[in-house]
């Protein structure tokens, strides 16, 4: 699909289904993407777009039942994580793949010191001795910019501010030097000035450590600042994907286009009225056979109800899942139509 290096992570046709009383929900519907070494992939979507569920499916973090991974491959350096089983996955989580969650208060354990939580992965995954692990923990805390690191090892999470807690989370995720770091809305719970600090830190860490990062967010502004490539998700599917500049300059999917227009700007002319995406966010993946954005789309036509659009290559690594051609403003011709 792309040129360049061999991907560290290659996800193919991942399908996750939740069984509920009201029937099946296709939370992740044939999602494919890859992640190359040293790259930052931004994943954008609203609540219910399936962005978090996708990442949790990769590492088997969803309770089953109700969740069931119904198909696909998740290749981490060539090894399929979906066939690993619980014991195998445990060796991958935190070791090969680090995770940073949205809310640092609920994802840190309040009854253990930060030092304990930082040394835990080092001791279990890398078999370090207690003293060696503490040394490494101090290094990690210094790396993420926590002042007075050695003394603060003995502190509990509540003694840290929100921004510092998120730095601790990042330090834990980085502890075993993972190949891939997955950050799920890591700055959403933070104030803008603190968010700016964390974004600077991540840019700096990327230069120092060169790991591959998946950054999940609903904030297109954050993505514009840090990502190399962007994947826009809607209703459990990839709506559009491409290099960051290309995607922001030439958004092809009606959803991406509307999303960019609906956000008020901090500079430039002030719109009299905000552009609106009509309707409500989708009730997730009830009708996997039709396009999830159809009900809110300004360009929807009959084919959108019959056929869920496949991803269509636009060149330069940019692809879109839509029956409507943003360049011509017309429906894309089907194979049958081209031949006739």
């Amino acid at each position: 699909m792309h040129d360049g290096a061999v991907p560290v992570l290659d996800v193919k046709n991942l399908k996750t289904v939740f069984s509920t009383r009201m029937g099946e929900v296709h939370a992740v519907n044939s999602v494919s993407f890859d992640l190359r070494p040293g790259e930052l992939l931004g994943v954008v979507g609203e609540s219910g777009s399936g962005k978090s569920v996708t990442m949790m499916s990769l590492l088997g973090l969803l309770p089953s039942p109700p969740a069931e991974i119904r198909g696909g491959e998740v290749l981490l350096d060539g090894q399929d994580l979906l066939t690993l089983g619980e014991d195998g996955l445990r060796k991958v989580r935190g070791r090969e793949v680090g995770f940073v969650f949205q809310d640092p208060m609920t994802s840190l354990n309040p009854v253990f010191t930060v030092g304990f939580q930082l040394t835990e992965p080092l001791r279990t995954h890398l078999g370090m001795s207690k003293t060696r692990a503490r040394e490494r923990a101090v290094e990690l805390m210094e790396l993420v910019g926590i002042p007075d690191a050695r003394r603060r090892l003995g502190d509990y999470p509540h003694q840290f501010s929100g921004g510092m807690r998120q730095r601790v989370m990042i330090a834990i995720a980085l502890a075993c030097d993972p190949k891939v770091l997955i950050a799920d809305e890591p700055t959403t719970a933070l104030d803008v000035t603190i968010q700016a600090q964390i974004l600077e830190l991540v840019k700096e860490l990327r230069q120092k450590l060169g790991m591959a990062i998946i950054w999940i967010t609903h904030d297109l502004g954050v993505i514009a600042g840090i990502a190399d490539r962007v994947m826009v998700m809607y209703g459990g599917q990839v709506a559009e994907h491409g290099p960051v500049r290309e995607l922001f300059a030439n958004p092809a999917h009606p959803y991406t286009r509307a999303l960019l227009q609906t956000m008020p700007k901090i500079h430039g002319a002030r719109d009299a009225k905000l552009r609106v995406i009509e309707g409500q966010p989708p009730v997730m993946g009830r009708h996997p056979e039709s396009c999830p954005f159809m009900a809110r789309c300004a360009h929807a036509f009959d084919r959108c109800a019959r056929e869920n659009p496949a991803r269509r290559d636009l060149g330069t690594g940019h692809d879109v899942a839509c029956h409507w051609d943003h360049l011509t403003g017309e429906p894309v011709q089907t194979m049958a139509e081209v031949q006739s």
Partner: protein
Amino acid sequence: MSVQTPPKRPLVEVRDLKMHFPILGGLLRRQVGAVKAVDGVSFEILPGETLGVVGESGCGKSTVGRAVLRLYEATAGSVIIDGEDIAAMPAEKLRQKRPTMQMVFQDPQASLNPRMTVAGIIGEPLDEHTDWSRARKLERIYELMDAVGLNRDFANRYPHAFSGGQRQRIGIARALALNPKFIVCDEPIAALDVSIQAQVVNLLEQLQDDFGLTYLFISHDLSMVRHIADRVAVMYLGKIVELAPVAELYANPLHPYTEALLSAVPEPDPSIEARKDRIVLKGDVPSPANPPKGCNFCTRCPKVMEICHRIDPETIEAAPGHLVACHLISNKQTAGSTGGPEAERKQTENQQGEVA
């Protein structure tokens, strides 16, 4: 929309409002200190105007909103709404005054009673403040549902059957029920998805035009406040550090905190983001229980001076309608009349250079 029309009498006048929450400690639970959530805030809002209040969590912006409606008993200061000081009003008089001032809350999930129907929720203010017949109330409820874009058929459903954006519309309809003049909107869009935020903001603007409402719009979303507000107050640690007309504030921020806050907002444009010279503030906001001596911002200010650690800066009017509390600006003004405007112009140029 513009505020340059001849001086109208403000609808809301807040003078030196203070809201200190006691910290109790010791065996006898005596007061051992105070969280100075709001510490001497003054502003006014003209009829039909929207005043935006921005700031980070813990700066006291929500407390201002609540104290202005006397949902808290303020520690000191006066709040004059439509000519009457509500901070010192007896309870029964206040109750009669309530219909003119209402609130829209942040979390539509938590602010709607899950065991009441939509009609019950929207009609509750009518039960409380009018002696209308049932039929008349129901008619009013339908009218309100139309006004906020809710389907009348859903009047007997419960809040859980609605999405976040629709729930916020229910909250707005309830606030409108008694024809208020003044509405405090406390982070009304913070809990909503990006694609729904614009819907709710457009609705608020539409209602303002239709009913001549005056808003105090509290938010941490600087882009959205730029869109909706006529004037904006920036709060830091319980105080207003800068207050100016919206265009002026965003184009020509004078306080170093405002500058940093604006530069921290990520913009959805990779080419701007790549060139942006972001001011990254060091450290965290100090605790309002123990604010620093001198200027509240002195612990994080990139342009801090010696005087800032000693003396709390006075609020001065740097330009017409542009209030700021910073020693940098007061110094400049006392240093000479030529220095001020020139330096300001330079600042504007910098700002534009950054954007272009």
